[in-house]
C-alpha cells in the first residue's frame, strides 16, 4: 500500500484562518451563519463568478489554492463530498416551479442544481478529464471522499487527488431546519455553544480542499486511515475506536490530540462526552464547531485544523476542551457524527 500525505490545504469558513494561532474569534449569535467572503476575483474571472453559486465559488477557490500550494496544476482525481449540494440553485428552481405552477421556467438554476456541479465546474475550469466523484452521505460525505482518494493513491493507481468538502446555505430550505429540531431556537453566543443544555445546533457554510499525494514533499500530515459507520451505539463507541487504532498498533494513549465534533446539541453531544471522560481523558481535546458551526462536510474543517496543528505545533486556547497541554503530537484522531448517525474516524500521523 502506498502512503498518503496531505500537501496543499485551503479553507473557507465562518472564521479567519489565523484564528488557529491568534484566537481572534468572529462572534455569532444567530443559528445560520454565512462563510466569510474571500477575494474570489483574485483567481476567478468576474464573468465566471457572476454565474457561480456560493458552493461552486467556494469549492473552486479552495481547490485552486490547495493545488497551488501543492504545486500541482492538474490533479489526477477530483473527489468531493457535499451532503446538501447546490442548495441555492435547487431552491431557486423549486420556488420558480411552485410559484409558476409548473409554468415556463429558465433552466439555468436547474442545470446547476446537481450535487456534482462543484466537482464538474472545477474540472471545467481546470480542463481536467480525470476521475470525478461526488459523495453525498449526510455527515459522512467528505469522509467517503477521503476514503475514495486513499484507495486511489494507496493502490498505486494515482499519485495525487484533489479532495474537498463544501456546504452552502439557502434562505428557505436551510430555514426549515428550525422546524425539525436541527437548529437552536434560542439565540446563543457561539463561544458558549458547547455548554448548551438544549437541543439543536448552529449551521454555517464552509469549503475545504486538500491535495493528497503519494510523496511526502513538505506534507502537513500523513493520512493513515478513515472509517465510517451509519449507526454506532454509545456503548460500542470505545470498542470501535480501540479496534480502529489497534490496526496501527496504537492505543488511545498514543493520540497526541483528538478533535471532537461537539456541536452543542444536548441530545447527541454525549457521544463526544463519553470519550472525553473515558479513553481520551488524558489526551488534549479540541473542538471547533462552536467557532465554525455545523454542516454535513464540516469535518473537512477538522482535517484542515489537524493539518495546521501539526505544522504549527500549537493551537489557540479557544479550541481547547480541556487543560492538557499538547506536546509534539505524533498521532491525531478526528471523531464526528451528526444526530447520532453517520459516525466517522480519521487517523493522522505527523509527517
Amino acid at each position: 500500500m502506498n502512503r498518503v500525505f496531505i500537501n496543499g490545504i485551503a479553507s473557507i469558513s465562518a472564521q479567519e484562518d489565523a484564528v488557529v494561532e491568534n484566537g481572534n474569534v468572529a462572534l455569532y449569535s444567530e443559528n445560520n451563519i454565512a462563510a466569510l467572503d474571500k477575494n474570489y476575483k483574485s483567481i476567478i474571472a468576474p464573468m465566471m463568478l457572476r454565474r457561480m453559486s456560493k458552493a461552486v465559488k467556494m469549492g473552486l477557490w479552495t481547490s485552486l489554492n490547495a493545488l497551488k500550494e501543492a504545486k500541482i496544476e492538474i490533479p489526477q482525481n477530483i473527489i468531493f463530498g457535499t451532503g446538501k449540494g447546490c442548495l441555492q440553485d435547487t431552491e431557486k428552481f423549486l420556488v420558480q416551479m411552485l410559484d409558476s405552477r409548473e409554468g415556463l421556467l429558465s433552466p439555468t438554476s436547474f442545470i446547476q442544481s446537481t450535487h456534482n456541479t462543484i466537482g464538474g465546474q472545477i474540472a471545467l475550469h481546470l480542463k481536467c478529464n480525470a476521475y470525478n466523484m461526488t459523495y453525498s452521505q449526510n455527515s459522512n460525505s467528505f469522509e467517503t471522499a477521503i476514503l475514495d482518494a486513499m484507495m486511489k493513491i494507496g493502490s498505486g493507481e494515482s499519485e495525487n487527488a484533489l479532495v474537498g468538502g463544501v456546504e452552502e446555505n439557502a434562505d428557505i430550505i436551510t430555514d426549515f431546519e428550525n422546524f425539525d429540531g436541527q437548529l437552536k431556537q434560542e439565540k446563543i453566543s457561539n463561544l458558549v455553544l458547547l455548554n448548551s443544555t438544549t437541543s439543536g445546533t448552529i449551521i454555517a457554510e464552509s469549503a475545504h480542499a486538500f491535495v493528497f499525494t503519494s510523496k511526502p514533499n513538505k506534507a502537513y500530515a500523513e493520512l493513515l486511515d478513515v472509517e465510517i459507520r451509519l449507526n454506532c451505539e454509545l456503548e460500542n463507541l470505545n470498542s470501535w475506536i480501540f479496534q480502529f487504532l489497534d490496526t496501527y498498533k496504537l492505543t488511545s494513549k498514543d493520540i497526541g490530540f483528538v478533535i471532537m465534533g461537539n456541536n452543542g446539541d444536548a441530545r447527541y453531544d454525549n457521544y463526544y462526552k463519553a470519550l472525553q471522560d473515558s479513553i481520551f481523558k488524558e489526551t488534549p481535546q479540541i473542538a471547533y464547531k462552536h467557532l465554525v458551526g455545523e454542516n454535513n462536510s464540516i469535518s473537512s474543517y477538522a482535517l484542515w485544523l489537524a493539518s495546521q496543528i501539526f505544522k504549527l505545533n500549537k493551537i489557540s486556547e479557544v479550541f481547547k476542551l480541556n487543560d492538557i497541554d499538547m506536546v509534539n503530537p505524533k498521532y491525531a484522531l478526528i471523531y464526528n457524527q451528526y444526530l447520532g448517525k453517520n459516525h466517522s474516524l480519521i487517523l493522522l500521523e505527523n509527517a
Partner: protein
Amino acid sequence: MKGIAVTGMGVISSIGHHLSENLEALSSSKSGISFPEILQTTHTHLPVGEIKFNNTELSEILNLPKTQAYTRAALLGTFAVKELLKNLGWEKFPEETGFISGTSVGGIDATEKHFKQYAANSENNRFIQAQHPGFTTEKIAEYFELNSVVTNISTACSSSANAILVGARMIQCGRLKRVIVGGTDCLTKFTLNGFNSLKILSSNPCKPFDDRRDGLNLGEAAAYLMLEADDLVQNKPIARISGFGNANDAFHQTASSQNGEGAFLAMEKALKIAGLEKSQIDYINAHGTGTLNNDLSESMAIQRFFGEDIPLFSSTKAYTGHTLGAAGALEAIFSILSISENKIFPNLNFAEAMQETGYSPVSIIRKANLRHVLSNSLGFGGNCTSLIFSKDE
C-alpha cells in the same frame, strides 16, 4: 482482471416489479412508457416510465409504519433491495455488508410536496432532512440493518454506475468483502420541469439513435446488485464486473462535447482495467437517451474509440425512460441479463439511422453469445462512466 463477482440482483422499473418481469418485458419488446398518473404534474402530456404503485401502496408492501419518512426514491430502493435479498435466497444480509447507493435528486419529491407546509409543529417536518440524497440511502440501509460502510454517490445520471464502480474498487482493494451497489431515483416535478425547461423532453415515446429523435422520456427505477469477494462466493456468479472507468468531459455543465471526449476516456479506462481488446466487446448497452446532443456525442465517442469495427449496440431507454441516477444500475442489470440470456434487447422505436454516422442499433431482439458487454452512463457535470460486464468463465 478476473473481475468482481456479481451474485445477486434486484430491480423495480416501469417494465416490471421483479427481475423476471423486467426480463419478460425486455424479451417481448414491451415498453413501460405511459402518461403520468401517480406523479401529480400539470405536464400530463409528457410520456414517462412510471411505476404504477403509489407511495401508500409501496409503504404497505414494505410494512412500514404510517409515520415513516420514506420518500419515493427510498420506497423504490427498499423494494428493489428486498427483491435482491429474496433472489439471493437469504433471510437477511450478513453483518459487514456495505451499501453504496446512487441517486441524483434523492428526496426532492418530498420537498416539492411539503415546501409550503413546513412550519413549526407540522407533521410533515420529518421529511425536512429527507430532501438530501444521503437520507434516502440511510432509510434503505436501516430497513435492512446495514451498518458497515453506508454511503451515497450523487453525480447526476451516472450516480448508480459510479456506485457500482466504487463498490467494485472497494472489493478489489480489500476494503469490503460484500457490498450492495446500485441506485434509485423517482419521477419528480423538479426533474420533469427541469428537463422540460431544457427543452429535451419528447412528447412521444423516445427514439434513441434515430435520425428523427426529439428528446428523452423520464423514468423511475431502483436497481441493486450484490458484489462479493471471491472467497465468499458460494454459488457460481451471475456475471463479473471486469472493467470500470470514470472520466470527465470538462466541456459544459450539461451538454456533451462533440467528440465525446469524456465517454471516450471512460471506455478506454474500463477496457484497460479489464485487460480486453476492443474487438472483444460483443455488445454496448449505450446511454442513448434520445436527445439530439447525447446520442450524437456518444456515437462519436464510440466511433472514435472502436474505429471501423463498432460492436452491436442498443439503448434500452425506450423501455424504461431515462431513470437518471438509477439508470446505470438498471442498465447494468439489463446488460447482465443480456449475458445470461444470450440476447440483445432491442432499441425500440428505431426507424432511421442518424445522418452523421449511419449507424443502426440492434432494433429487433437478437440471439448472441455475449462474453463481454460495455455499458455507458453519462451525466450532467460532464460525468462519464463505463462499466464492463463479463460472463463468468
